[in-house]
């Protein structure tokens, strides 16, 4: 029953505009990473508040995916620190990062198509009776899964439906729900609205807003699609040449400004390339 009562991390926290230090869930200071002669990250200072949705933009090779890999524990930075809730941490593995509440949600990799919604939600965290024997208490898991999904307002017609029979949006929602149910407080979402229709997108946008505002879950969204980012995020960071070149609230910027920024970077790179060619 305790499972049902406190399924959400930070459910008690209320969204607050003031910048209290305790509100900072994730902070990186001077992250660097190089692969041989190629410097990919040259000092990334990123911060993320509780219940905030941060969009991460950057061209291929700007260092975006390396940053994400470091944050989810897949790679270690060469130098720099990562702070979670103000405490310095270092991840040695993806599982390590998950223990600190950081989890990456993949749209199609996350679920087992042949298992039901409830079974997927409880994957490897199954509730059992008779302890060691591992006899599943399927009814309890179904009830809890149902009430949890109602809690975060995800509508799934049938909790016993196999994941395979769900739409892409529903699958994404279940994957997110599983992460938060298993106590993730920082979600890394990779193109969460890719290949989705309007209704599907609305489902995910609503879920992201609800989780961040009402349940204090923080999220980092990686996406190439500005429309999606403006729909989902509170704040945007642009990564260029291995550091954060732009940091603005979504309400203070526009798709045009972002596009201009990216185009000028493209021209700068082009000029740089031509200069190198001449030499």
């Amino acid at each position: 029953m305790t499972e049902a009562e406190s399924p959400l991390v930070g459910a008690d926290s209320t969204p607050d505009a003031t910048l209290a230090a305790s509100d900072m869930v994730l902070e990186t200071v001077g992250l660097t990473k190089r692969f041989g002669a190629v410097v990919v990250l040259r000092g990334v200072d990123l911060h993320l508040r509780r219940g905030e949705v941060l969009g991460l933009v950057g061209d291929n090779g700007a260092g975006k995916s390396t940053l994400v890999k470091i944050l989810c524990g897949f790679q270690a930075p060469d130098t720099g620190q990562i702070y979670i809730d103000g405490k310095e941490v270092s991840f040695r593995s993806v599982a390590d990062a998950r223990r600190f509440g950081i989890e990456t949600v993949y749209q199609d990799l996350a679920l087992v198509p042949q298992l039901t919604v409830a079974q997927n939600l409880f994957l490897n965290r199954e509730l059992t009776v008779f302890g060691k024997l591992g006899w599943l208490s399927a009814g309890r898991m179904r009830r809890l899964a149902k009430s949890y999904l109602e809690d975060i307002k995800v509508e799934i017609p049938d909790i016993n439906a196999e994941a395979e029979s769900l739409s892409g949006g529903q699958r994404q929602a279940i994957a997110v729900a599983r992460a938060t149910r298993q106590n993730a407080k920082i979600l890394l979402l990779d193109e969460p609205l890719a290949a989705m229709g309007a209704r599907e997108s609305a489902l995910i946008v609503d879920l992201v807003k609800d989780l961040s505002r009402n349940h204090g879950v923080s999220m980092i969204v990686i996406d190439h699609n500005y429309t999606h980012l403006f729909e989902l995020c509170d704040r945007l960071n642009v990564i260029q040449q291995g550091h954060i070149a732009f940091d603005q609230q979504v309400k203070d910027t526009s798709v045009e400004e972002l596009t201009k920024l990216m185009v000028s970077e493209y021209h700068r790179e082009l000029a740089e390339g031509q200069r190198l060619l001449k030499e």
Partner: protein
Amino acid sequence: MTKIVARATDSDSNRRETPTPKESGSRVYLLVQWATQQRELTVVLVTLSVIIYFGIANSAFYTTANIITICQYLASFAVIGFGEVLILSLGEIDLSAGAVYLSSPWFMYFFWHNGMPIGWAIVASMACCAVIGMINGLITVWLNVSSLIVTLAVNYALFGIVLIGSNDIQVDMPGQTGLFSIIFGVGAWSTTLWAAAIMLTIWALLKRTRFGLHITATGGNLLAAAESGIRVRRVKVWCFIIISCASGLIGILDAIRIGTVNPGSSGLDTVLPGIVAAVVGGTALTGGRGTIFGAALGAIFLGVLEDGFNLIGVNANWFYLAEGVMILVAMIANTQLGDLARRIRR
């Protein structure tokens, strides 16, 4: 069972009478939808029709003696089939189960021959089977060799071990007398009851426990399972151990029932019907989907087929052709119904 048939034909006639299928109402639709969700339905229908056919063709088919014959015959590949359901659910395959089935009575015989009491000889033989399963599993998951090849190699190796150990001479099995023999194979229903017990155990394991759920998860989406922290390699190794122990146990029982063991039997001829039983029953070769009761039905289908052809006196030359065609028919019916089910659910 008969109810299902009656309702299915009812819906057929319904559809024929009404010119527009859309107007024939949601009842037919719901019925078809329900029917297509029953994964074991096709093999139930196919098996029933085969049973009915042989019953009409030969009155000896329904006698108790014949039913016992069928059950004794099918117990071996039913049990191997149950094990294969676990292995196929993982997306792997075990071709050595037949060789384990054939060699476990030899292990038992060797232990007994060297002075071990018969009960302990059985236990020791089962331990050997567990080790064989573990070897299959460990090579598959740690050395990254396809389980098809690993278990095929182990199949041949076991065949060789039995030939070497026995000097290619047939022997009589111990334990032919008393209550022991009645429980362990000689009793008319002994192997059948053992097979039923193994069926229920493996079914509960697959469908009612965490371990079973992790089998499905591992076979359904290896990456997601591993990501969620399931120790997928350990799950796989355990499944190889389980199928080996189950096959070895039924092998010992069958050997005691028959009374002699012959070192020249082919393991593949024993394991393949088991795999066919599992797959005809509705277990996917690609992993993630397994049904134990389906495998039982598949085994009954194969047993009835073999026995029925013998009873009605099909020419021996025609026997394998007929069996092959029937397996194909059952399998095609199965996949076609599966496709239909998917289209309806969309």
